[in-house]
């Protein structure tokens, strides 16, 4: 019996909480393998402070790395595309994270993810 969902004038909200257990951590693992200095980040924010793209947008590599580590990859999708690869962050990073490669790897991993999602869809 198909029953119609009632509408009460509001809807159920998905929570904003990071559900670490439910999140997918594969992308982070792939990226950590491609750029092991990812693990060195101490979230100090120096990168974001000097960021060229950060002058124009709210792009923050610190934030991106955290999202990645927590498996919040969905929020990452349109982030690294803002990067100009100018390399300032790499020069100021106190932990010598290879930020440029990290950005590239993230961008590519998301692209690969999109690709694999597309292949699944077309199947």
């Amino acid at each position: 019996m198909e029953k119609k969902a009632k509408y009460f004038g509001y809807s159920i909200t998905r929570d904003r909480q990071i559900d670490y257990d439910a999140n997918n951590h594969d992308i982070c693992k792939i990226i950590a393998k491609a750029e092991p200095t990812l693990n060195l980040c101490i979230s100090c924010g120096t990168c974001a402070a000097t960021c060229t793209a950060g002058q124009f947008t709210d792009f923050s590599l610190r934030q991106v790395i955290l999202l990645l580590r927590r498996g919040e990859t969905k929020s990452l999708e349109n982030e690294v595309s803002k990067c100009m690869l100018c390399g300032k962050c790499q020069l100021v990073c106190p932990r010598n994270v290879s930020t440029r490669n990290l950005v590239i790897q993230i961008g590519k991993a998301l692209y690969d993810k999109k690709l694999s999602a597309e292949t699944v869809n077309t199947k």
Partner: protein
Amino acid sequence: MGELYNRLADDIRFVESLKACINCGTCTAICPAAEFYNYDPRVIATTVQSQDDEKIRELMSSDAIWYCGECMSCKTRCPRGNAPGLLIMALRSVSQDMGFFTESEKGRQQLAVKRTIGDQILASGYCVRPDMVDPGMHPEQGPVWDWEHKNLIPVMNKLGANYNGEGSGALRKISQDDLDELQKIFEITGGQERYDKIEEFSKEKAAEMGLEFGTDTNSEYFQHIYTANNQKHNHE
């Protein structure tokens, strides 16, 4: 320290609610509002702590201060003995007194609360009365409530309530003398003034928005604020 900050600091609840926040996030971690809204009590505390009037004004004009459900879970846990929930109450008070509340969608809803709960207190002596829980405005109450609402007198009678009756008991009618005392208290302590301000500022806003203001819950403005949701409050 600015004027707004000083106003906040005058609130007895503010004094109790904010003592050098260390930004640890204990409050946000268990805050139900932080779970479902784009809301972070830690950030509220930090913003107020900055004592930057510009930021505080912005905060008071934003949706952010209206997400809290005042469950006070934050008060239980804060390692510095702060209570963002109380801080929110202080912020909301000033926001209403200064008229900032009409700047945000969630803030504007205060008129709806005033015209329902607020007016009910003075009219009946209670915040809620069964006749007020109209199934139309409260569809989630379900068919049993619907039935109960239709048969209020016999059902309440069966359940031992003294519905609208004289004397004591559940749902008794509060005598006019008692209501007059309540009204007097509201007038003396600023309750009535708060009500009037909510009406006043909302009226201005309604005019600005080009909505019919009215005096009851059927007006255009009321219906708008009661139901409007720009979908920007959650993370989706």
